[in-house]
C-alpha cells in the first residue's frame, strides 16, 4: 500500500512536470511576446502611433523610378506611397518603414534613393506635419498583399506601437510601365 502511494506521488510529480512542459511549449516565443503593438488603419485615415501620426494618402506602383535624370528599374515593382506624418507630443522622426506581404515577408524601403522622411533624420515637431513619398521595391507577386509598417525606431521596434496600413494594390502585374517620380518631403505648415 505504501509503495503504491509513493508510486502515485511520483506519477503526480511527473504529470505536473509534463503539464508544465506542455504549457511552456504552447506559449508564444520570446520575440512574439515582445512584438510591436500594431495600430491598424486604411489609406486615407490617420493612424495614431504612440509618438507619431501617419496617413497614407495615395499609393501607386510602377516598373521604374525617375530620380532626376536617372531611371531606377527593378526586377519586381516599385510601390510608392504618399505619406502625411507628424509628431504627437515630442520631437519625433520615423526611422523604420517597410512593407509586409501576405506571406509575412518584410521588404524595407529602398536605399537606392534617399528617403529622409522615414530614415530617422527628419525630426518633426508636434503640430507641424510633413508630407512626402517613399518607395519600396517588392517582387511583383507580393504587390497585391502589402501592409505598410511605420515605427520611430530603426533598430528595435519591439514593445512599441507600429502603424500598419494596408496598401490597396490589387495586382502587381498591372503596375504602370512608365517611370514615376517621388515627391520630396515638404512642410505642411
Amino acid at each position, binding site marked *: 500500500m505504501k509503495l503504491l502511494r509513493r508510486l502515485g506521488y511520483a506519477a503526480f510529480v511527473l504529470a505536473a512536470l509534463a503539464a508544465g512542459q506542455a504549457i511552456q511549449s504552447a506559449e508564444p516565443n520570446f520575440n512574439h511576446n515582445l512584438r510591436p503593438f500594431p495600430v491598424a488603419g486604411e489609406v486615407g485615415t490617420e493612424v495614431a502611433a504612440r509618438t507619431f501620426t501617419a496617413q497614407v494618402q495615395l499609393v501607386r506602383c510602377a516598373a521604374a523610378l525617375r530620380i532626376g535624370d536617372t531611371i531606377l528599374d527593378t526586377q519586381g515593382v516599385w510601390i510608392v506611397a504618399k505619406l502625411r506624418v507628424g509628431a504627437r*507630443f*515630442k520631437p519625433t522622426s520615423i526611422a523604420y518603414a517597410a512593407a509586409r506581404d501576405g506571406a509575412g515577408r518584410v521588404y524595407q524601403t529602398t536605399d537606392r534613393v534617399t528617403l529622409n522622411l522615414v530614415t530617422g533624420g*527628419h*525630426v518633426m*515637431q*508636434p*503640430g*507641424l506635419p510633413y508630407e512626402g513619398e517613399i518607395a519600396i521595391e517588392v517582387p511583383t507577386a507580393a504587390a497585391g498583399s502589402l501592409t505598410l509598417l511605420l515605427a520611430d525606431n530603426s533598430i528595435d521596434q519591439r514593445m512599441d506601437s507600429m502603424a500598419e496600413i494596408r496598401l490597396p494594390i490589387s495586382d502587381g502585374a498591372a503596375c504602370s510601365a512608365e517611370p514615376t517620380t517621388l515627391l520630396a518631403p515638404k512642410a505642411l*505648415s
Partner: protein
Amino acid sequence: MRGPDSLGRGWWRRNVWGLIALLPALALMLAAAGYSDLEFWQRGRPAAVLPATDGVADFAGVRVRVAELAPATDLKRSGGRPLALPENVTAWRVVLDVEGPADPEQVPYCEISVEDTAGNLYGDQPLELSLVSAPLGNCKPDNSPVPAASGRHQTVALFVTPRGVDIAAVRVSFGTVDQTRYVRFDRS
C-alpha cells in the same frame, strides 16, 4: 491527501488557516510585483528640478537662469537676409544666463527644450529653422553670443511651434552629468 487525523479532522479542516492565508499572500505578491514595475517605470522618467525663488537653478555644477523667452521675429538666414516663416508657425528664442567654471571644458553640455501648455515638447534646431544662422544652444561658452567674462556667458536656443501655441516652461537637461533629472523653468 491522508485520511482523518487523530482528532478526526479531514484535509480541508487541517489546512483551513493555511488556505485562508493564501489569499492575502497572493494579493501581497501581486502588489509587490506591480509596485516593482511601477517604480521601475517611474525611475525611467526624469524628475524636474525647480529653480530657487530668484529664478536661478544651481545644478550640474553651473548656475542657470532664463534671461529671455519670447517669439523670435528677427531671424536671419546665413547670408543676412530675413527668414520668412510660414503663416502658422511661430519661432521662439530662449536665452539662458549660465555661470559656471572659468574653464570652458568644465562647463557641461546641456540640451534645451520648451514645453507648451498642453505638455508637448519642442526641440532645439528644428528643420523649419535649418536656414537660420544661429549658434548651438548647448550651454558651452564657445557658443555664447556675448563675451564669456568671469565665467558668465549666455546660450541661445531656437524653437518652432504651431501658431497660437503658448510656451509654459523651459527644460534644461545636462545628460552628461545627470540623466535622471532636468531643470524646469516655469514661465511666470
